[in-house]
Structures are given as structure tokens and as C-alpha cells.
């Protein structure tokens, strides 16, 4: 067992992670702190640097706005609808119009109401599974990185196994054994299969943090281990945790849609995925009822796009080199004026 786990931790991916760490430039936030750059006066100066870095990131904010709009829509919109998403509300395949804003399905259910209600469940499954996977990844990643030794070997072995096991087929096996896999079951299974990547990135980060001065000094001061983990290491993991959460949420929303679409989900539940499933089963496209397909499709695409934008922002904050060079002109000019190299960007 020990030998096998050894191989796992010396895999190529780890070496790449290590290489990335060695060349990691100080982040924008660290630089701002170190050089004591005064931030532009304005409302962002009152925020903590990491929040300010996110708020001033254009892509990230566009993503947040779209995502908030989707969440608000699915929370509030059903209240303005007089129809029940599970009940027949009109004639089959009524085109969008005054009575039915987005038309009706083959079963005569109101599409607008279904998209809004479905959003509640799809988003809940996505975020629930994404958050759970990120939390599991965080716990395992920090433990493996901080405790090292045998604990690291064993945990890394399991992380690597979770990474190579194909997720969707595994979910199919589990979901097919449960009578009808409702959104809750799908969410739980997605959380249990999705923690590989966050665990891996967080472990690598913890490894590098463990030898930094502030952790060493906390250890020398005799702080308890759990306190060091929560007070010293965890705050520095926040952006990686967020990155893992966002990616996990995207893949959970897509996987939920895929599973429901192939008919593994509970067909009576209303989610964006089951809407697509019924649309495909009822030949919505063949009969020209585009309004049965487009609304859930656009909802999934918008949510995915918004989360991708947020992930871009998180990436740029954790690794400022990725940012296109324009936005950091101020810092560059400052560094030049002090005669310091601006090549870190």
C-alpha cells in the first residue's frame, strides 16, 4: 500500500503543480500590500484588498450580475405566475403570447413557470453539489498538505483515484440502482465524485504555505494545529476554494442536465434537465415548438457563462500573470518609477 501511494504522489501532475508553484509570482494583493500602494480613492478603498480585486474585475462582475439575475429570477418569478409547473395550464404547444409568456409544452404546462421553478432546483443542485465538493476538497487538500507523511500519501492516493474514475458513468451506476434518482440523490452523488480537482489544487497550495514564515511562527508560538489550519492557512485558501466551488457548480449543473436528459432523473421533478428531456421525448423540435427547448437551454447556457466569467476573475486574482497587461498599468508605472522591474506581470 505504501509503495502504491508513493507513486501516486510523484505523478506528473504533482511535478507540474510544483513547477507552477516555484514560478508563482507574488499576487496583485501581496504586491499592493508590500509596496504600500495607495489605492484609487473611491468606494473600493474601504474594502479588503481581495474583495476589491474581485469587485474591480470587469469579467467577474458581469458574471456575478448575470448569476444574481438568474437566482433572483428563479426565486421571485414563480410568484408572478398563476400557473402550477406540474399541472396542465392550457392547450398543448401554445405559441408564446399574452396568456403564456413562453408558450406551453406538449403536456400543456406553462414553460415560463417551469423554467422559473426548474431554476430553483437546478441551481440548488448545482450550488449544493459544488459547495459540498469544494468543502470536501478543502478538508482533504488541507489535511494532506499540512500533515504530510503517511496521511498525505493515503489521501493523495484517493484523490488520484477519484480523478481517474469517470464521473458520469459512476453516477449512472448509482442513479440506476435508486428507483428514480431525484435531484437530491443526483446532487449527493455529484458532490461525492467531484472533489478531486479542488482537493488537488488546495493540497499543492497548502504545501507551499506550510513553509512560509507566518505559519512557522504560529507553530513556534505553540498554536494548536486546528487553529493554525483555520486562522492561518484557510484565509489564504479562499480564492482557491472559490475557484473549486465555481468549477464544481458548473460541472454539477451540466451533469444534472445531462443525467436528467438521458432519462436517469426523476421525470416528475421539474428541472432544466428534465424540461430538455421532455422536449426531446415529445419531439418539440420536429413539431416546430422551439419554445419548449430554448428557454431551459438558454437558462443553462446563461448560468454556465456567468460562472465561467466568475472563474476567469478568480483565476486572474490568484495568478495575476493571466490578466491581460492593460488593467495593471498603474502598478507597472509605479514599479518603473521606483526603478524596480515590472516583469512580474
Amino acid at each position, binding site marked *: 500500500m505504501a*509503495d*502504491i501511494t*508513493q*507513486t*501516486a504522489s*510523484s*505523478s*506528473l*501532475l504533482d511535478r*507540474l503543480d510544483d513547477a*507552477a508553484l516555484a*514560478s508563482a509570482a507574488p499576487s496583485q494583493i501581496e504586491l499592493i500590500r508590500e509596496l504600500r500602494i495607495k489605492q484609487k480613492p473611491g468606494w473600493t478603498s474601504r474594502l479588503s484588498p481581495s474583495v476589491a480585486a474581485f469587485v474591480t474585475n470587469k*469579467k467577474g462582475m458581469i458574471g456575478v450580475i448575470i448569476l444574481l439575475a438568474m437566482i433572483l429570477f428563479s426565486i421571485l418569478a414563480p410568484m408572478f405566475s398563476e400557473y402550477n409547473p406540474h399541472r396542465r395550464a392550457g392547450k398543448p404547444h401554445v405559441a408564446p403570447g399574452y396568456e403564456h409568456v413562453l408558450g406551453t409544452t406538449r403536456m400543456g404546462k406553462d414553460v415560463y413557470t417551469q423554467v422559473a421553478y426548474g431554476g430553483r432546483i437546478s441551481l440548488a443542485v448545482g450550488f449544493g453539489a459544488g459547495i459540498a465538493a469544494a468543502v470536501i476538497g478543502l478538508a482533504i487538500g488541507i489535511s494532506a498538505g499540512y500533515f504530510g507523511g503517511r496521511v498525505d500519501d493515503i489521501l493523495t492516493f484517493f484523490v*488520484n*483515484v477519484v*480523478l*481517474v*474514475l*469517470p*464521473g*458520469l*458513468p*459512476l453516477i*449512472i*451506476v*448509482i442513479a*440506476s*440502482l*435508486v428507483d428514480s434518482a431525484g435531484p437530491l440523490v443526483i446532487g449527493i452523488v455529484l458532490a461525492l465524485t467531484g472533489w478531486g480537482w479542488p482537493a488537488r489544487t488546495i493540497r499543492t497550495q497548502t504545501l507551499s504555505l506550510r513553509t512560509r514564515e507566518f505559519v512557522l511562527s504560529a507553530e513556534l508560538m505553540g498554536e494548536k494545529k486546528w487553529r493554525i489550519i483555520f486562522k492561518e492557512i484557510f484565509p489564504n485558501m479562499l480564492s482557491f476554494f472559490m475557484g473549486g466551488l465555481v468549477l464544481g457548480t*458548473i460541472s454539477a449543473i*451540466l*451533469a444534472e*442536465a*445531462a443525467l436528467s*436528459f*438521458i*432519462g*436517469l432523473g426523476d421525470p416528475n421533478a421539474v428541472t432544466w434537465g428534465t424540461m*430538455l428531456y421532455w*422536449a*426531446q421525448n415529445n419531439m418539440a*423540435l*420536429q413539431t416546430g415548438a422551439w419554445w419548449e*427547448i430554448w428557454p431551459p*437551454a438558454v437558462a*443553462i*447556457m446563461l448560468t*454556465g*457563462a456567468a*460562472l*465561467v*466569467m466568475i472563474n*476567469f476573475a478568480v*483565476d486572474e486574482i490568484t495568478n495575476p*500573470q*493571466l490578466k*491581460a*497587461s*492593460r488593467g495593471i498599468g498603474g502598478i507597472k508605472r509605479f514599479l518603473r518609477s521606483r526603478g524596480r522591474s515590472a*516583469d512580474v506581470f
Partner: protein
Amino acid sequence: MLYILRRVAFYLAAFFVAVTLNFFIPRIMPGDPSARIIASFQGRLNEAQIEAIRASYGTTGSMWEQYLSYVGQVMRMDFGISTVQFPEPTSSLLFYGATWTLVLVGIAITFAFLIGTMMGIHAAWNRGGFFDSVFTPINVMLNAFTPAVVALLLFYAFSLQLQWFPLGRAHSTGLSPNWSFEFIGNVLYHATLPVLSILIVSFGGWHLGMRNVMINLLNEDFVILARAKGLSDRRVRYRYVARNAILPQITSLALSVGFLLGGALVTEQVFNYPGLGKFTVTAIESRDYSFIQAQLLLLTMSVLVANFLSDIANVVLDPRLRKG
């Protein structure tokens, strides 16, 4: 060599974990397959019949005996008899489907990797330029569009409306499989739309991956030295930076195989393509558990083989590994 041996040891261990999971998942679930089938007969079975059903699903004897006999079956590639296409053995259905899935995923993954990587190189080299600021976000967003939607739209536009492409199947009904140009052309014609829909949702990942790794390399000393030597832009871009940035891409290529096979599942369903995904969906509908379990093992095995191939590719491409 030691490196490769270590990797093989890891893959064997990972496969062992997959087999074990496959064994235990149905047994810890409420109501195993045999219990379900027995229940569906509502007490019309006698003792001997119940015993026979249990035996065919391997749920007789102690847990340990069951496990050993299951591992034995897996080693012999004996996954029982399909209940959908009775009396075909599950394994022959499995390999028939896998061949067509391999055609789809193989073509899609090759093109997605090439297109995405080339775009990523271009975006990283002109970081912050027009191409980078417009296409990087767009390509990655395509990545977040579900395969179901993309496949449905392509199917609607090109198969139903324009009728440029067929409505399903892997090849025309009149043809029998052979290596003639006519047959291969026919297969490619039928595979175009399914491949395209997998391609559209997957090349963005390669774009972003290549771009990010390359940007991190651009400020390395060896790149600055290469430029200082006055090497041509092209040479620095491809022979120095891209050459090094491709290594992590190959590793994630192998890890993405599982994800792509999952995506093919949905695509095959939309285009009625006789691949593994289509068979799996049929198996789910008719509760053919032996097939569902076998597909997981086959897919796990292909992901492991892909990882092994990428390890070998990395050893070939990265001399540092050969010494270590």
C-alpha cells in the same frame, strides 16, 4: 522505467478500487438487482427459481465468496448475458458500442485538442489583444454549454431543417462494415454532426489550459534568452514556449477522456448513434444492471489506458523524466 512501473502500479490499484466500488455499490443500495427482479414477479416464483436468479447475479454465498467470484468474472471479461438483447452476452454488445463511441470520441478529441491548443498559443502570444479578449471568454463559455443543448440545436438545424446530414445511425443500412473508401466515407458523413457537437463543447478547455500555461512560461529565463539570441518569433513561440507548455496539456488530455465519454452519452442519444452511450441508456430504461456495471468498468479501463499512454508520451517528450 521505474517511473512507468510506478504508474502501472497506480493504475492497477485504481482499477482494483473501481472493481471494488462496482461490487459494493449495488450491495449497499436498498434492494439489489436480484431482489428487484424477484420483487417484480410478485411472489409467483418458487424457491429454486429465486435461487437461480440470485446465483446469476452473484448474490449467493458469503460476501467474500461473492467478491472473489466477481473479480474472477471481471478478469475473464464475463459480464453475464444481456437482458435487453437476450441472449447476446453483455461483453459483445459492450465492445460493439465501444467501437462506434471510439470513432466519435477519437475524432472529436483529436480535433478539439489541435484547434484548442493552436488557439491557446495564439491567445497567449498576443495576450490582451483582440483575439485573446474576444475569443478566450467565448470559447470557454462554449465549454459551459451542455452537450445536450448543442447536439439538439445541431440536429434541428442540419438534420431536420436543412437535411444536410442523416437523422441517425452510424452508417447507411445498405452497407456492411469493410475498409472500402465508400464505407469509411459513409461513416464519417454520419459521424460529422455528433463529432461537431462534442467538439464545440470541448475545445475551449484546451484553449484556456494552453493559454494559461504559456503565459506563465513567457517570462521564464529561457524564453528571454531565446529572444535575446535573436531567434525568430515563430521559433520561440513553437519550439521554446509551446513545446514546454504542451506537457500539462497531454496529462489533462488523458484525464478528460472520462469526461468526453460521458459527453458522448448525451450526443449519441440525440443523434441515435449506436455507441456505448445509446446502449447504456437502453440498459437504464430496461434495468439491465450487468450492462450498466460493465460500462463503468470499460470506461474506467479506457481512462486508465489513456493515462498510461499520456505517461509514455510525457516520458518521450520530457527528457527530465527519463533520468528520474
